[in-house]
């Protein structure tokens, strides 16, 4: 069954000459189907990557020809630009707060929803909705208002005797409000977790319950290992996205990254250098460092995944 399905259909008997021509025709057809993608991948992905690598070694302002300056952009970035480091630490703070909390909340709600019978579809959709709306400028503006001085959050907290004031005006608190906006959008990873949970065979839990395993034990020894591929997927995806956060930081700080550069996330500073200050060479260098950093983090995650991600199929069937 699988053998016939995977073998190229034209491997059947007929004359060899015709087969050749047929194969060539199909190669040609494949390239016709692929042509938009090939053009896009070359002209809009590969070429720009190479060009931005080149520009990162130049001084370029969009109007005059780029001037080669070697590693100057990089050395300036790493040794002479405190705002650059500020943007790095701000972004890291944001990623380290937002991603784990978002995933933890997503997992907790997914586990709760799994055992819900009535209204499961409703809950799933309702929790998912913020993930679609959250990227909108509209929501970022709402965030700015409710975390402002005298906004809802300020009112609620001072009612409880905690006087922080407006988060968006306080360095240290402003980035938290941006992180909360990300955590608010836990619906997308939650939906993925839920789908993963539903594929865990119920027999595993039944057997564990018979053996007297506690809820926590079952969670640790069945749910987490069985769910680890999905957890890994969500972690990689959310991490990559989090490194590129832009809109909420822009809205909360009116595009300036304030107060005191405390919401100056990496991409906001990149935008500021490249498009406001017209230092395209410097911004390109920043872009490449971001690319390498994301690549490095992904590689490290993949590396460590061997230790904690468990693929059930590997042991049962030996691949696919």
């Amino acid at each position, binding site marked *: 069954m699988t053998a016939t399905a995977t073998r190229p*259909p034209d491997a059947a008997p007929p004359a060899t000459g015709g087969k050749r021509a047929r194969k060539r*025709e199909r*190669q040609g*057809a*494949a*390239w016709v*189907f692929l042509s*938009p*993608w090939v053009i*896009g*991948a070359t*002209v*809009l*992905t590969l*070429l*720009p*990557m190479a060009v*931005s690598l080149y520009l990162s070694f130049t001084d370029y302002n969009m109007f005059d020809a780029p001037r080669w300056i070697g590693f100057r952009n990089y050395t300036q970035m790493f040794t002479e630009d405190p705002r650059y480091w500020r943007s790095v630490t701000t972004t890291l703070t944001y990623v380290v707060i937002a991603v784990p909390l978002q995933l933890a909340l997503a997992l907790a709600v997914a586990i*709760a929803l799994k*055992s819900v019978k009535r209204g499961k579809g409703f*809950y799933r*959709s309702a*929790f*998912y909705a913020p993930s*679609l*709306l959250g*990227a*909108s400028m*509209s*929501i970022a*503006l*709402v965030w*700015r*208002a409710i975390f402002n001085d*005298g*906004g809802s959050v300020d009112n609620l907290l001072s009612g409880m005797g905690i006087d922080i004031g407006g988060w968006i005006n306080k360095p240290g608190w402003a980035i938290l409000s941006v992180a909360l906006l990300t955590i*608010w959008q836990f619906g997308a990873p939650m*939906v993925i977790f839920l*789908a993963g949970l539903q594929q*865990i065979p*119920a027999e*595993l839990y*039944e057997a564990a*319950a*018979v053996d007297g395993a506690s*809820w926590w034990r*079952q969670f640790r020894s069945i749910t987490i290992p069985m769910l680890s591929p*999905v957890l890994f997927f969500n972690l990689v995806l959310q991490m*990559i996205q989090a*490194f590129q956060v*832009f809109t909420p930081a822009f*809205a909360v700080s009116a595009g300036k990254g304030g107060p005191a550069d405390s919401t100056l996330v990496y991409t906001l500073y990149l*935008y500021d250098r*490249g498009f406001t200050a017209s230092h*395209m060479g410097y911004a*390109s260098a920043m*872009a*490449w460092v*971001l*690319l390498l950093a994301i690549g490095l983090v992904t590689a490290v995650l993949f590396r460590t995944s061997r230790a904690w991600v468990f693929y059930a199929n590997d042991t049962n069937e030996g691949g696919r």
Partner: protein
Amino acid sequence: MTTAPSTTPITAPGAARKRPAPARITLHICLIAVLLVMLYPLAWLVATSFKPADEVIASLRLLPSHFAWGNYSTALDGVNEVGVGRLLWNSLLIACGAVLGNVISCSLAAYAFARLRFRMRGPLFAFMIATIMLPHHAILIPQYIIFNQLGMVNTYWPMILPKFLATDAFFVFLIVQFMRGLPRELEEAARIDGCGPFRSFFSVILPLTRPALITTAIFTFIWTWNDFFTQLIYLFEPEKFTLTLALRSFVDASSQSAFGPMFAMSVFALLPIVLFFLAFQRFLVEGMAGSGLKG
């Protein structure tokens, strides 16, 4: 359910049936509490869009004392003397162009990757997957230079053209996964009947791929509609602004009197997404769920 004495005293995470009624009710209460907190910002947005200027910040109550429809009529006038109708049309133009581009180009590329054999298929597929993770910012500046050279800055081409060239690899991948699940016998039958790859793509595979295409279309629409960064760098003429960019103009002017109209316009900007969500929630949720499991 309550009649049978429970054989296992411990509630298993996987077994819903054995959960006693009080625990179930507690669970629902917790879920609803979380849901209310989550929906608060949305309720706040709608309520504030109806509040008269002096109540926006000063009043602690969620609901306005009376409905100030004036916010909406001010919002209809738009920003920078460009009316909301125009802004809405601009947003729609970009989003629909992007949808058309993605559906066509991604399904073509996906068919080649899923079903046709060609040289370098493996490496090219791996490259395509890798571009899903590529941060947009790494290619942003050269792309800007290219579009600038082509005289396309301050037009919608930089937002639409890349979609016709399948640059959203995520959707290529999504459709490839879907096509791989279709039985090959269908195309074999079509081939025996004399269909070439083009006929079998258009007449056999494409109609069956409809769910994946709908998912692609909806996500493309919503993501393009919400997109801010690309529009921010490419569009500068108020006539060409989208709803998102018009909202951005409010960011700088932070006077309280602009709050009501600003949030009225925010409601306009969210409305299409909410409608899409209500109409297609099954496709959206399933599409999101599937992306993780197969990935």
